[in-house]
């Protein structure tokens, strides 16, 4: 969770490579941003596909992906045969032989007799199309056994939790980091420095303490979950109730990363505010606010966004146990349930989904990066 300060200085200056010829005006800016985004998207897509493929390879070391497909085949054929009149009239031995011959044919059709390299590519293709097969034990809210539906059900709450906490985290950290870099060395600054080591603990860990304090001892906030049971009828009441359940998990996530973010960014602002052009701006007599917004924040923003992207990535998977601790009905808790039930298709699918979500996060932040980085916009 601790983002190394030195890593802030070493982000790649990638945008320059994709920038084409010089030009001016809104249209060429659009072209550049689009082109930059397109190139980024393609490289990102390739790396995601490889990441997913590696995940499949790891999962299949013990033949687990094959087991998923075999299970599906058996279930499907079983269903088909149960509806078959002739099959019902056979005697048990004949039934079994017929069933097995059907399974063997289907396995051949699905290519389970093919070499592993070919099969894993077939599974990769399914994973890219978000076709994860059927779960062994779990089902979605609507009762479907489709893994993709189970995951879709649970994505909303996870996005709500991560979105809420990250937005607060980002703006509060930047605001405080700027404020501290202006008045460094004072008591608040020292306090933040003193607290920054606490960010070494993950969010679920702070979740334990927050639940102990605010739910168990003080009884102010609920232990967990996303909504009271029964839920309030009117929409406003519903929203407020969800917000009330959101307070503790959000607080846990923010607590676990805010001090390190403030510390890192404050340090970064401080390094930048000793640059010559800032001194120059001061000498010209520009106001503090102008210097801060135009001369310090503007050039550092792309790097800040990159470091934020790394933070969000670490938060994504850190969310698994946080959701578990707070009984938050998101992806992470479903993951934990799937581990408990040993539901292989769901475990593999969620792992792959996490790879997608990481890539999506990187993509979104890269897009924002392209918007704020003048090197992409103006070229050269």
């Amino acid at each position, binding site marked *: 969770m601790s983002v190394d300060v030195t890593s802030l200085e070493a982000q790649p200056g990638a945008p320059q490579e994709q920038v084409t010829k010089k030009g001016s005006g809104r249209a060429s800016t659009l072209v550049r941003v689009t082109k930059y985004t397109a190139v980024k998207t393609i490289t990102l897509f390739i790396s995601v596909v490889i990441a997913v493929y590696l995940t499949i390879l790891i999962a299949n070391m013990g033949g687990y992906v094959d087991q998923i497909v075999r299970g599906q085949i058996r279930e499907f054929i079983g269903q088909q045969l149960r509806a078959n009149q002739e099959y019902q009239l056979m005697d048990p031995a004949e039934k079994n032989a017929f069933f097995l011959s059907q399974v063997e044919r289907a396995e051949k059709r699905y290519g389970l007799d093919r070499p592993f390299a070919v099969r894993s590519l077939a599974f990769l293709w399914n994973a890219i199309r978000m076709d994860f097969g059927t779960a062994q034990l779990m089902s979605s809210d609507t009762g479907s056994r489709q893994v993709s539906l189970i995951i879709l059900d649970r994505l909303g709450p996870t996005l709500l939790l991560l979105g809420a906490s990250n937005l607060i985290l980002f703006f509060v950290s930047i605001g405080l980091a700027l404020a501290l870099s202006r008045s460094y060395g004072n008591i608040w600054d020292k306090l933040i420095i003193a607290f920054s080591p606490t960010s*070494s*603990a993950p969010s679920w860990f702070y979740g334990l303490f927050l639940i*102990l304090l605010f739910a168990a001892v003080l009884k102010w906030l609920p*232990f967990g979950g996303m909504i009271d049971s029964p839920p309030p009828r009117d929409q406003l009441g519903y929203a407020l109730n969800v917000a009330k359940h959101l307070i503790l998990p959000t607080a846990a996530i923010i607590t676990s990363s805010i001090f390190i973010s403030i510390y890192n960014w404050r340090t970064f602002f401080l390094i930048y505010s000793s640059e010559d052009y800032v001194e120059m701006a001061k000498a010209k007599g520009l106001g503090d606010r102008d210097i801060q917004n135009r001369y310090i924040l503007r050039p550092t923003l792309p790097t800040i966004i990159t470091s934020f992207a790394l933070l969000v990535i670490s938060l994504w998977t*850190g969310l*698994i146990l946080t959701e578990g601790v707070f009984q938050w009905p998101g992806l992470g808790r479903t993951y934990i349930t799937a*581990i408990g039930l040993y539901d292989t298709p769901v475990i593999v699918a969620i792992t792959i989904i996490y790879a997608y979500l990481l890539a999506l996060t990187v993509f979104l932040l890269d897009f924002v990066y392209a918007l704020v980085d003048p090197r992409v916009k103006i070229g050269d």
Partner: protein
Amino acid sequence: MEGLRNGFKQLIKYPSALIGLILIALLVLTSILTVIFIPRNEAIRLWRGGEAIWGHNPKTAPPAWTNIFRSKKLPETILLNPSSPNVESQVSERATGEALLVTYAFDYTADEAPQDIVFNFSASFKSRNPFVSIFWITPDGREIRLIEQGINYNTTYRVVQDTKLQRRLGGLSPEIGLFDNPETEAVDVLKGTYQIVIDGISFEEGSQITRSDVVLHGKVHGLFGTDNQRRDLTIAILWGTPIALAFGLVASFGTSIFSMIFAAIGVWFGGWVDELIQRITEISINMPLLSILIMIGTFYSRSIWVILVVTVALNIFSGAIKSYRAIFLQVKEAPYIEAAKTYGASSGRIIFSYMIPRVTPLLIPGLVLGVPTFVFLEATLAALNLGDPVLPTWGKVIYDAWQTGGAVYNGFYYWILEPAALLIVTGLAFAMVGFAMDRVFNPRLRDI
């Protein structure tokens, strides 16, 4: 070497670093002592041995020292057997068999009744069961009959489960009723010397009652308390220390060293090697590390060593490799590398003897800062019930407390707070030292 010594001198000028170093030293000392005095197999036996090892302990009892902060002192466990003080035991021969009369006397000073009172009997006989009567004599001289019954080869009598006795005591739960002061309205404990009289008879030649022990399960236990299986948490708390430190240090050390080697190789050879390492890093950043570890833990092996190797392998190509690369790019241009090249040093020699040692001071803060991350990673996996199957760790205690013991809902806060406190102390100790080191070894940060 001189540089490192100077660095250390500067480091201990930071109070936070000094506190951190002291804490780390204490943790290391605890680990060494633990491993010496409770060897691994002994720890596993104590943690997984079964009822025979922890049967005498109370259930979910907070640590004994919490009594200091309580206005009502809770009792500790009292074990009564023939070797304890204030016992009178006499055996007399009968025509067939023998008669046993044991009197246990003990002082009771706590403000609350014990958790349970358990009598354990063992006997040897052929066809006729021996018979025991138990009498409870309070400090004010009342005599309460507990049971009069035949016993088997092994018989356990738990006072808590005796509903008949409960009725005779006026509806009070028996273990409370036996200690209640009848003079007062409220339910409170009568302090003083209690006596338990066990009167046993056997009816056959050679038949005898071989064991007649009493355990008064307390409500507090030892230094760290017990869990819901009556296990003494001391074992898990102490053994968690070397495991957490070993995992954190080895994982952080391994990751940093390998990242650095790969970064140096990439920079030195350049071209497609560098390109390949950079692409692998980009892919690796897109891989959900924790979920992959969880998947491996679920499907293959929960052994802490397997998890450790996988953790290191997956973390080599992380964001850190990029910062090492940036540093090595500068180092590569240094004149002394140029000189080495001209006298014909091999690539291996330049990488391992000239480039890597040069940046080692830069590696140390990151290495120390990485330790808490891995300590908590191990705790996270254990708290997901993917911990090592045999060794007790802090994360597993948290899992037990949270998931199986319902510690939060039932108010057993000590059970969660103890491992959590040690985790945070370990994490903070390394983080404080790491932050200070970062300032000492990273000149750009020194004045800030």
